[in-house]
């Protein structure tokens, strides 16, 4: 990416994980974070927040992560915002699938709250080159 990563929009339905991610990304990482509990909420609020990055859980009740990303990308101001998926199940062929629909990478769950921010930063910088 050509600019610095500051704002992350995270779509995750589970409250416990939301809370850990807030510490991992806001407190440890120093990022500005907005969390949405569903794909619908993300679609309604993303444009106003104008994130630098989408972080999406794959499996959610209602709209899943990939579908949410597709809809988010339909919003003109968000069409180029990069995305990272988070999921409990990653097999290498799935990672490829996610990349094909425009994800920078996939972060497997469980994640370590103390290093999640570093990991995201590394992915971001890797794609800056």
């Amino acid at each position: 990416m050509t600019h610095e990563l500051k704002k992350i929009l995270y779509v995750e339905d589970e409250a416990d994980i939301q809370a850990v991610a807030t510490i991992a990304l806001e407190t440890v990482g120093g990022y500005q974070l907005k969390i949405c509990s569903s794909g619908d909420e993300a679609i309604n609020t993303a444009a106003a927040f104008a994130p630098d990055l989408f972080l999406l859980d794959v499996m959610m009740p209602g709209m899943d992560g990939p579908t949410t990303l597709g809809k988010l990308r339909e919003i003109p101001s968000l069409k180029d915002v990069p995305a990272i998926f988070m999921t409990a199940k990653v097999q290498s062929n799935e990672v490829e699938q996610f990349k094909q629909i425009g994800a920078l990478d996939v972060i497997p769950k469980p994640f370590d709250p103390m290093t999640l921010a570093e990991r995201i930063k590394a992915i971001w910088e890797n794609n800056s080159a």
Partner: protein
Amino acid sequence: MPKQSVNNIEEKLRGLRNSYIQHLPGKIKDVQKLWNSLCNGWQNETIDELHRIVHSLAGSAGTFGFAQMGEIARSADNILKNYRDTEMPPHNSVKDELEDIFEKLSSICNSITEQAEETKDSTGLDVGYKPDHKNSTVKNRIFMVDDDNESASELALQIEQFGYEVTVFNSIEAFKKEIAVTPPTAVIMDVVFPEGEFAGIEAVRKIQRQRAVHLPVIYVSTYGDLKSRLNAVRSGGDAYLTKPIDINMVVETLDILTSFHGNDSYRILIVDDDKYLAEHYATVLRNADLDVKIVNDPMDIMNVLVDFNPELILMDIYMPGCTGLELAKVIRQNVSYLNLPIVFLSTETGQEQQYAALRMGGDDFLTKPIDEGHLISSVISRAQRSRKLAEAITRDSLTGLLNHAKLRDQLDIEVLRAERQGTNLTFAMIDIDFFKKVNDNYGHVVGDHVIRDIARTLNQQLRRTDIIGRYGGEEFAVILPDTDEKSAKYALDKIREEYAQKHHAVGKEHFNITFSCGISGISSSKSAEAIVVKADEALYEAKKKGRNCIVILP
């Protein structure tokens, strides 16, 4: 945003982990319910829901440190995903496998929650000794501003050992941004920055000017000349330390500036038979952050004096039963209340009556109706002096803890209170192990630091309602109201174990300090005297057992 202290983050994560543990049984129950319903009839919606919960367990359990649970959930996840979108129920062998997995999940969940209960028990947190807000959850936040990152980080680490939470800023700009958002309890500011030789002082001057409340600031500088010091004072700085920084000096200054005790609201007792008026005064004073109690019947005052321990009495002169003047005399008969300020309130404007009030032991005379501002300021200024005076008489000068005499008085009072209210009470005597060696090896200055450090630790770790005293040279005593002996031991054991790990530095040398403790309580000894004797015997026993331990005698 600056990196917050790792301790603080870990503490928050522990909190989240606990709440995750609390949610776990509910999730496992849902899994069981859905699985039972599937066994009774295969339905796509149900399997989707079950898969989603299991999948989310697979992802979340490991994040909270329950890897085994995550792995088992994942095996169910892998099986179940194959049965989504099919009408076909799985073969019996697969059903058995799933049944097995869900049983395992449930038993792991049980052991996780049981373990959580046990660890709570062993820290005493839920046994009957609940730490209060003074405890580690609310640490004093310190901002340290220094462009030399390495030395600042090292100093920050050392200060954090003393129970402060330190955030380091390497530039004045970063500090200014953050202070607007979350003001700290105190600031440690370097004087010289690339922006100028007094840039640190300038920044503080601007911030102090914008603030309604003074922000405690300690300057650190390589230069100790008068001009710098004067500048520092004029900018609103409270202390000026020269580099190389003596960590003990920094911590002691922080302790004073953020003072452990002395921040409580002043306790004011209003004695007035007119309920509405008393309530009115109380509201005015409470709005000024004072702790107010009302007595409408003057005959009730003696019990309230003991329980509430007011720092000032505001009293009407004319009341039924006895006059305020008589009541003041009665109060003054007890030597413990000789220094307690008594302020009379009356519509009486006659000089003669006012002089009489003062002769009877009153400290001031306020005429009703009184201006609210006047009431607040005269009450606060007297209460302030009363507290300072009381502290000078009752506190140990080295540690700021209660002295021996006051602690014994307090024990008498607390034992009476516990008997009357039917509550528990525990008394602990603490003695530093091999303290003489510290003095012999490192000198008395280091010995004094150790004593102050233990005093600080007790102050920080115990509850606000616990009463801590320096009982003798290297001996401390703690009164723990409303606490049984076992819970007191849990709480003090935790402090003892942590303290034994702490390194004390003298130059390049390090040493550790341990302490022994004897505990007794109202449940086994009936008088304050008997409690002290028994705690002393228990302490002796702890020393005999090899020190660094706590003993309760049967």
